[in-house]
């Protein structure tokens, strides 16, 4: 059974169809790529799955045996879907440590009332959580900046922090929205290495939306290609690479094999 399954997923904004009748299966333990030209509905797909948008009637989204089609975002997060945002959406006035602590929110072992009536126990539990989160920050290389406001990090560090915040949720499925956008090639390598080792360590399933095709081709097990909100191709990177519908949607014109190879390898 796939970890995430969408059946007939549709979403239109004022009659404009952003996603239509999309069936996607994401197998547990895989790295799944989602590619497509600008405006093909990749980010909308993310927002639908995480409950930021409500899908049109008739759509179904299943995650890990639960129907999450109409669930609010915070419940979907608690079930084990973590995501990053294209524009990061960090809590910029909070410190780096506080950012990842928020990610841990669903696992906090105490309720609101005990913060007032049993404060000493909470201080102890928060100290344990802090140790755990510092370990995570160490892993992504931000431990030195734990006390700094997130707004003072550099662009690459912010991207790492948004990944760390998502990982603090201990998710089953990690959805990365253009994780490599705006990063230098060295940083992209670094980020991918971190994602891969996180996947190994926590047995994650990863869904990547990416513009840089090299990233998708090198890391993904399966790739789904979207165009105008519809699935136009799916398969291993090798299969997708040779699919003419995909090449046409992506590149817009006929190319000979050498040109195609040059585009995908660059």
């Amino acid at each position: 059974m796939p970890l995430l399954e969408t059946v007939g997923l549709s979403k239109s904004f004022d009659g404009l169809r952003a996603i239509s009748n999309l069936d996607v299966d994401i197998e547990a333990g895989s790295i799944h790529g989602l590619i497509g030209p600008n405006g093909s509905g990749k980010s909308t797909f993310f927002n639908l799955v995480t409950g930021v948008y409500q899908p049109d009637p008739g759509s179904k989204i299943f995650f890990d045996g639960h129907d999450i089609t109409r669930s609010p975002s915070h419940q979907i997060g608690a079930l084990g879907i973590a995501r990053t945002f294209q524009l990061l959406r960090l809590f910029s006035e909070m410190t780096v440590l506080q950012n990842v602590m928020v990610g841990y929110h669903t696992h906090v072992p105490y309720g609101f009332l005990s913060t007032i009536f049993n404060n000493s126990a909470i201080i102890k539990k928060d100290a344990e959580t802090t140790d755990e989160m510092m370990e995570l920050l160490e892993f992504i290389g931000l431990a030195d900046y734990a006390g700094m406001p997130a707004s003072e990090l550099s662009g690459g560090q912010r991207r790492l922090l948004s990944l760390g915040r998502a990982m603090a949720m201990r998710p089953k499925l990690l959805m990365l929205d253009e994780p490599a956008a705006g990063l230098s090639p060295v940083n992209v390598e670094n980020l991918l290495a971190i994602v891969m080792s996180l996947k190994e360590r926590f047995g994650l399933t990863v869904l990547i939306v990416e513009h840089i095709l090299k990233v998708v081709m090198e890391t993904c097990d399966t790739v789904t290609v979207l165009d105008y909100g519809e699935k136009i191709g799916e398969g291993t990177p090798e299969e997708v690479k040779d699919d003419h519908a995909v090449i046409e949607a992506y590149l817009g014109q006929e190319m000979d094999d050498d040109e195609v190879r040059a585009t995908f390898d660059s």
Partner: protein
Amino acid sequence: MAAVNSIFRSLSEFIDQLSAIHRMLPWLLAFGMLLPLPQILAAVFNDYYVYLANRICIFIMLSVGLNIVKGFCGQVTVGHVGLYAIGAVSAALISLHLGWSFWIAFPIGILVAGLAGVIVGLPSVRLEGAYLALATLGLGESVRIMIAVTPAFGSSTGLLSIPPPTIGSFTFDSFEKYYYLVMPAAMIGIYMSFSILRSATGRAFMAVREDTIAAAVHGINVVKHKLLAFVISALYAGAAGGLFAHMPPGYIHHNNFTIIEMVTLLMMVVLGGIGHIWGGIIGAIVVTVIYDQTLEFYFYQPLLFGLSMVLIVMFMPRGIGGLIDRYLVTRKFIAVQEEKADAAS
């Protein structure tokens, strides 16, 4: 500056040492140091300054509560003073008409204000920023007007001779005695706000303030936390109101709950530092003292306060608390880097 630095550092080290022995020790020390304050104030100045200390304690409770909802949860509310009024009037009416003691009237006043807090908080589910401010402004003002036009709530004469609290034969009937009621109350309020804001709930409030979508995606129930922040702040306002109503001479009037009062409260939170854990406390002390010292320029006070609010928002958006925070964070970072450099060499 170097002298200030070293004083600041030794002070914070001293507090760290104390809390290492027992985490309540700094609180007990502060409590003990504040105990003889009214006697000192009465001896050095006069009784009026004891009254001022009482007022500061009440304002601390109000602004600490406002800081939770506005500073930490980011909900711009201008209805806080209405909740204060609800707490004051309901506690006063219970004491006056039912003849129940302060110790019953006070908690009931807090609960009534807390329920009203849910109503003031409801618009926040849909509205944000200036729109939310307008909605809460309407609610707050309507409470005041309700009091002003209803004879049972005091109308234009106000509620008179509200009995002071008593324990056995001891009556809190002077400012000096009443101080021993409001000061511990303010301390408990501060302590509770620290416990709430330093827990996961406080972090969730901040996350809602920073970005509601990101907060929701990370598993935070945004609506629940917004309402929770409103209710907590309402409980604080209700407590402040109940204490204000029973403070000698036991008189409340709807003029105590005007929009000017609300602006003063906002000023406290903004000056103290929006979203800074000490913000409300610093602000309440500084603003009450400045307000009092400039009483002779009564007519120019709104101008003075309005202008300084604009200047603070422009040039010191994080307030006094923000400056302190920045200083501490930078120092810590430098210390860590120096340590690393030492270890490397």
